């Protein structure tokens, strides 16, 4: 159940599809994947597709918050999409909507960069 990441491009945003579990054993891997995607695509606009993410721990949430903050400093962002209900419950419980934008669909998240 280790994390795997598939990267694609959609309308100027890099979409990273996460499969498995995002926790302390995989944060470094995802951090590198986000950095590489931002470099390769020449854009710091990242969308995470999370419908196949089974588990996420606070180490994973911390990485997402830190990555978003770093990308915003480069006029980009990291936006979340297609979170499972279980993950969404924790997301709201922690009050993470203060610093992370979340969208129901991947298409909505990609479109949001054009707004």
């Amino acid at each position, binding site marked *: *159940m280790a994390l795997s990441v598939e990267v694609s491009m959609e309308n100027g945003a890099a979409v990273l599809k996460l499969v498995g579990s995002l926790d302390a*054993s995989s944060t470094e891997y995802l951090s590198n994947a986000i950095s590489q995607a931002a470099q390769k695509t020449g854009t710091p606009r990242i969308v995470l597709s999370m419908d196949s993410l089974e588990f996420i721990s*606070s*180490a994973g949430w*911390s990485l997402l*918050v830190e990555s978003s903050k770093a990308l915003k400093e480069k006029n980009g962002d990291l936006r979340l999409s297609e979170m499972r209900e279980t993950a969404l419950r*924790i997301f709201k*419980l*922690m009050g*993470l909507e203060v610093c992370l934008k979340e969208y129901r669909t991947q298409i909505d998240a990609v479109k949001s960069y054009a707004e």
Partner: protein
Amino acid sequence: MPNNTYPTSGSKELKVSADVKGLDEGRDFVAQSLSEMEAGPEATFSLTTSFLELFENLIRHGYGGESGYATIGTNVNGEAAMLTVTDVSGKFDILGYDGPDQTAMIKAGITGKMGIKTIKVLCDSVAYKREGNMNKYILKKKRG
């Protein structure tokens, strides 16, 4: 008398190193064993996520980067699914540790101390015991 509502019960145990490799092995063990014992998707999610939070804290604060190990137990019986984690780090009740105000920390981009709150919300009961030189954490969730 057999329990016809919940026909499956059982318990399993695994000893892992207190590091990210152990976290990886432990997470898969908890999720798989609870699923096999038919704990139910909600209980499996809640206890597996709680395991991640507990174990990440154990690595960081319990053992503080030093080598060590932990024993993970899963048990499903009647209406309850249970996770136990036992370690031999110094006396430290991770579950009783309250961190600083999270809202202010999240706004500042610092998300530490979220794990304990997550455990307490996801589980129906959480308990800590000091048994000899061992810390024992017992987390329960209603099956389903």
